[in-house]
């Protein structure tokens, strides 16, 4: 198409016109609007926020999010007796639940300490103090158990020392509170600190004795496999491969000095032996930890 042809076609578009009846109706309709508008129209236009309508859904959602976050943030500063204190407790419990298995005892310890601090600030609510004291004592009983559940000895030792460090001021905080059963709580704190100390001591000992213990266990395993080669030959190829892999890893761990990791793998081999109901034989032929 040439430019001339295009311009001719564009010129033809000039024939487009609105319906004349509609055009006349529209004019008369618009003219009637003037009087109404003149009365109500303000001389100075106020600032309009009408543009916000198009973001209505997003704004409502954002407002809820802000309200939600600020409620949680404000709740963290509340004390027992306040309406929002259950929100704070809920947040603290969620923190414990979401913490990794290894770090859980430290998080629980930090929160127990925070709860003791809150308890020390209350001056007029004995019932709330008694309830808090009970919950704190439950937590103090749970923490040592959680420390024992940590599978890696070195991690367990590190976490226990952190817990011990956090637990230093517990008694001072407890003495500042209104708690009537303060002796009971203090006794629990003493027991808790003793348990943590004992756990640190035994774990350190276990780590220090690891090389000797590892050599003994390895020798016993080797002896067992040599003596029972016919029984072991009946196992599935998967299990034999698994044990070979463990033994190769143990050999590597010993070379690089990872005694504790090698020990964990020996425990895994022992578990396989237990599945075959051979644990009694192994236990009798392997030395105690």
């Amino acid at each position, binding site marked *: 198409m040439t430019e001339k042809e295009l311009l001719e076609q564009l010129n033809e578009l000039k024939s*487009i016109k609105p319906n004349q009846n*509609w055009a006349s109706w529209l004019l008369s309709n618009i003219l009637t609007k003037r009087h109404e*508008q003149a009365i109500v129209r303000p001389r100075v236009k106020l600032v309009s926020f009408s543009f916000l309508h198009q973001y209505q859904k997003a704004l409502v959602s954002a407002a809820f999010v802000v309200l939600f976050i600020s409620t949680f943030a404000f709740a963290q500063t509340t004390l027992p007796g306040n309406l929002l204190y259950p929100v704070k407790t809920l947040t603290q419990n969620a923190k414990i639940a979401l913490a990794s298995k290894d770090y859980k005892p430290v998080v629980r310890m930090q929160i127990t300490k925070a709860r003791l601090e809150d308890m020390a600030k209350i001056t007029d609510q004995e019932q709330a103090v008694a309830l808090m004291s009970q919950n704190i004592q439950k937590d103090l009983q749970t923490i040592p158990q959680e420390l024992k559940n940590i599978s890696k000895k070195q991690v367990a030792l590190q976490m226990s020392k952190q817990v011990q460090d956090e637990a230093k001021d517990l008694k001072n905080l407890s003495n500042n509170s209104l708690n009537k059963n303060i002796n009971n709580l203090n006794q629990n704190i003493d027991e808790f600190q003793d348990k943590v100390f004992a756990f640190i001591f035994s774990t350190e000992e276990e780590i220090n004795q690891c090389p000797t213990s590892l050599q003994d266990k390895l020798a016993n395993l080797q002896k067992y496999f040599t003596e029972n080669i016919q029984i072991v030959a009946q196992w599935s190829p998967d299990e034999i491969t698994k044990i070979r892999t463990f033994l190769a890893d143990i050999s590597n761990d010993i070379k690089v000095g990872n005694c504790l990791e090698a020990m964990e793998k020996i425990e895994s081999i022992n578990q396989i032996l237990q599945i075959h109901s051979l644990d009694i034989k192994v236990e009798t032929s392997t030395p105690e930890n």
Partner: protein
Amino acid sequence: MTEQEFSQFYKNNINKVFRFIYLRVDKIETAEDITSQTFLKVWQRQIPVIASDEALSAGRQEFPLISNPTAFVYQVARNQIIDFYRQKNKKPLSLEELKEKGIDLPQKSFISQIELSFEMENLKKALQRIKPAYSEVIIWHYVDDLSTKEIAQILDKNENNVRVLLHRALEILKKELNKKV
């Protein structure tokens, strides 16, 4: 602006403005709605379309004088079309909403119909396919007979820019039409 002044302005521009809008939207009803809103806004704003002494002495000097009212009405129309396409993805205005906006519906139905030849229909569709900035200048200059000076005022650009834009727009439209042929 007196009723007489507005009526005169309306009669001079209704065909052009309607045409400009109709070529940018799909349906004739949509074009009628947007044309209604455009002229209603001009009227409600009480712009001294014709800057007469009478208008000034009537106490309407709070509104700035519009040196080119035709350009102004096209600016309003242009914004209304943009609003229409923005709202199109949401929901159509209900009859009640149209009334709230000050648009009375006709008491009797006007059977509006525009017969376009095959070539004109093709041209209209091609105008809608190219960038709005191009189709606008083509319609204003070649269909509504606006000068480059008037277009420059609507777009707030200088005349040279408008000439360049027109040239480019025409080339693009030609390519678009040839593509379809």
